[in-house]
């Protein structure tokens, strides 16, 4: 019997490996963005790529997001498979026209005759006091607009497998990676930011949620950091005799409705946790799905945890007040179980 020690990688290295393997496999794949070359991406997503592939396929861009994201669209229409990095998702404001009016709509407007096989990867998330313009996730902002897939993996394994799927997908994919889950040396060390990642290329399908902890009493639907917080809360809930089932959404578009509904039909209780603004957001979408399709399976009201509708404040006690965490998830579930 062959025993192989599992290879452990950080989130950023898993992503960079996925991109490197796809660049080896397909000469049409290339990367561009700010500081993706020598620096290897501010959040390490392109680490080592410049060395491997040179500046003709790993392009540092000027601070001209409209130009290079627009150029990715144009190149994709010509058969290239660009990966463009928007350094922080918060910067989408300067280039959103290219993203939602063009990248997302060209396939539809052309009646399917023009395809845009590109990946727009971007860093999301707060929790380290980077304040209002550098801490958002904006999951729902992107997921609201039709025509682009939107994924948000939570583990190194999924970061690699979903990046490979995203690159091979013939549609535009917004690939959101969470800064705290990149395993970077200069951020808060988090166990979940490092995990087993096979070396050989593999794919993880886009549009499939994952039950990351089975349970029978309550369903907690989450994504990225909130998945890990939900798992922490679930451990503590188990000590109280409450078995929570935790679902990691992984993908917002397409949304895996079946996995959510199956779980709700089993547990009869639903809590949705999101690191995005509350109103008109992911929590509302998942709650609406449950209300529409599984209303009579629910034994208690649906509960939502998200950022109250305020910009992300800088000061530590203020930021901690507004981002959901293990404690607020735990409290919410305990209260819900009493209803």
């Amino acid at each position: 019997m062959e025993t192989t020690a599992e290879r452990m990688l950080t989130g950023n290295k898993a992503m960079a490996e996925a991109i490197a393997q796809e660049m080896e496999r397909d000469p049409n794949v290339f990367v561009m963005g700010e500081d993706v070359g020598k620096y290897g991406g501010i959040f390490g997503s392109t680490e080592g790529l410049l060395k491997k592939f040179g500046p003709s396929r790993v392009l540092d861009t000027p601070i001209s997001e409209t130009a290079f994201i627009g150029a990715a669209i144009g190149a994709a229409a010509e058969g290239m498979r660009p990966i463009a990095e928007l350094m922080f998702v918060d910067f989408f404001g300067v280039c959103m026209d290219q993203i939602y009016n063009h990248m997302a709509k060209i396939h539809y407007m052309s009646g399917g005759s023009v395809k845009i096989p590109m990946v727009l990867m971007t860093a999301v998330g707060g929790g380290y006091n980077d304040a209002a313009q550098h801490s958002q996730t904006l999951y729902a902002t992107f997921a609201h607009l039709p025509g682009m897939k939107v994924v948000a993996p939570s583990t190194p394994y999924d970061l690699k497998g979903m990046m490979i799927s995203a690159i091979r997908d013939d549609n535009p994919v917004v690939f959101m990676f969470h800064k705290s889950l990149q395993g970077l040396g200069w951020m808060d060390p988090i166990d979940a930011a490092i995990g087993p990642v096979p070396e050989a290329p593999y794919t993880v399908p886009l549009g499939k949620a994952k039950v990351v902890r089975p349970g029978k009493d309550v369903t907690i639907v989450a994504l990225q950091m909130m998945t890990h917080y939900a798992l922490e809360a679930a451990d503590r809930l188990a000590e109280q005799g409450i078995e929570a089932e935790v679902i990691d959404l992984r993908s917002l578009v397409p949304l895996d409705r079946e996995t959510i509904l199956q779980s709700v039909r089993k547990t009869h209780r639903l809590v949705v946790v999101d690191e995005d603004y509350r109103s008109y957001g992911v929590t509302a979408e998942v709650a609406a799905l449950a209300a529409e399709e599984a209303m009579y399976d629910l034994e208690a009201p649906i509960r939502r945890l998200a950022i109250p509708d305020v910009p992300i404040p800088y000061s530590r006690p203020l930021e901690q007040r507004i981002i959901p965490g293990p404690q607020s998830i735990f409290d919410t579930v305990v209260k819900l179980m009493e209803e």
Partner: protein
Amino acid sequence: MTVPLPKLKWMYEQMVKIRYYEETMVAVYAEGKQPVFNIGAGTVPGEMHLAAGQEPAAVGICAHLQKKDTVTAPHRPHHHAIAKGVDLKRMTAEIFGKKTGLGKGKGGHMHLFDPHVKFSCGGIIAAGIPHAAGAALAAKMKGKDSVAVAFVGEGAANAGAFHETLNLAALWKLPLIVVIEDNAYGISVPKSESTAVKTNDRRAAAYGIPGVYVEDNDPVEMYRVSEEAVDRARRGEGPSIIEIETYRYLGHFQGDPEIYRNPEEVPLLRKKDPIHRLITLLEEQSVSSGELEQMEIRARQEVDEAYEFARNSSYPDPAEALEDVFHRAEVNV
């Protein structure tokens, strides 16, 4: 040209203050981040972009500004804020995330607002340029002779907002000056690899406005060209661009591994320090070493008091996170 002595002294004192402020911040920012750096830990968490070495850009033009004039700054804003006369105590408290800060702890180091001296800054590259144009437009509409200055890095000259705003400002003859601080890098990317022209003053030609390039981080030359640009704007003759070659002594942000630049670069730059150059000029005008020392002591004292104030202030109550989204209204949670 010679700078009038009182202005020269003012510039010197401001530059010393800025340098000491930034050097103090290096130490304060490191508190709680050792032995392992963690961006979210310590006395001052989050990103920290410091401007040691870039003082001439800020003081050379602010020497011509008054309270009524507007300044917008980017993500690296301390030198501009200090030169414009922002309340140093409340600015520092804001950077510490304290309740007594300019934004009650909501903004942080990249988002400082001091309306008393018409100063603001933000973390989105080039976003402050149109705001300054708007201030200039307001001045024009109100028939005032105030001007607006937008500070940006050389990297921002490649953003759409830069070009759109300059065209608009030139078209409407707005009293706007865009000051570009060419510190040779946008994070890790050298100017030569991001910018199609050697210097950005050339881009002024595209909008039919004056553009000048100040070499070698020269505070006196910066003072001179700024006088022309500010006077021109006050006279209602429209915008201009000033680009200044300047030096970033520290990393892009604190904690930057700086793998993209030669370790010998900064020591060489520091040899040409603009503060030393001002000392020489002041001595030539027979300012005594005693007076220089007094100015330095005063500047340092103000900085020390600001840090003291910030340290001793309290954090906001967590519930305050829900306030200030709208004017005098609370968010319902």
